[in-house]
């Protein structure tokens, strides 16, 4: 009996080890889970096949809108995605999120960003009017409308 209790106690200690660090997850918009993520190359393949897909991926925040926090640029593999938030319904921090791991849930699709919109984003990101006027070509990019975002601290 005593032997069994001792074995179980030791098993508990070894199985669980020392307490892990507290993981802070901050949700923006809908509360989503961080599991069942789609690999980015699979996402690209799916969007190319069907035009638009509901999906959840992980990436790294490059920058967020410095004015309102109403969009962010996310690095996924070697690509940069423009992520906007569904119905302008929520926002992310205007600063301090760069380099953090982010999980985004929503709709991915190809979109043409007009010159006016690109200039607007440039000004949102802190560029001067003169700098933004250097943008003269629209961009065809993979875009993402997120309904829920997790930023991991």
């Amino acid at each position, binding site marked *: 009996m005593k032997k*069994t*209790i001792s074995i*179980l106690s030791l098993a508990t200690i070894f199985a669980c080890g020392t307490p892990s660090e507290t*993981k*802070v997850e901050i949700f923006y918009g809908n509360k989503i889970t961080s599991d069942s993520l789609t690999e980015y190359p699979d996402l690209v393949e799916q969007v190319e096949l069907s035009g638009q897909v509901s999906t959840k991926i992980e990436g790294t925040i490059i920058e967020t809108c410095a004015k309102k926090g109403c969009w962010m640029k996310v690095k996924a593999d070697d690509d940069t995605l423009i992520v906007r938030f569904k119905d*302008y*319904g929520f*926002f992310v921090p205007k600063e301090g999120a760069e380099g953090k791991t982010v999980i985004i849930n929503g709709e991915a699709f190809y979109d043409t960003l007009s010159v006016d919109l690109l200039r*607007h984003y440039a000004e949102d990101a802190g560029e001067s009017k003169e700098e933004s006027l250097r943008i003269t070509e629209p961009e065809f990019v993979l875009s993402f409308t997120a309904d829920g975002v997790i930023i991991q601290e």
Partner: protein
Amino acid sequence: MKKLVVIGGIILFAACQQQENKLTQTIIDPNDTSEMALLMRDMFFQLEEIKQKILLGEDIAQEQLNFELIHTQTPTDESFLKEGLVPMSTAYANSIEAFNKQPSSKNFSSIVNNCMSCHTQLCPGPLERIDNLIIEK
């Protein structure tokens, strides 16, 4: 003996479950909100309520809207005070006045069109949200 092992197993499982410490919180807007942004959010919610009444066929004859002039509100920063804001804000105020004189679906749509025109030119981010106010024909 078997019972003890089962109980021990459950304790072991429960103990390990507690290992993963996760702190979570849900946020809609982590940033400071300007007077102008708050006004626009208030406008949206009031207009959304009227849209729902129109869609449900309810009487809107007594509906009245009362907003401050947009261009007199403090924006997030000076860059929001773009050329064209004052005339568009004035046109918006005129459309509100027309609605208050004669609350109707047509005058409601006129307000929404003003929102769309202004944001198309000055700040396209919220267009997707304003789009939800359009009454489909």
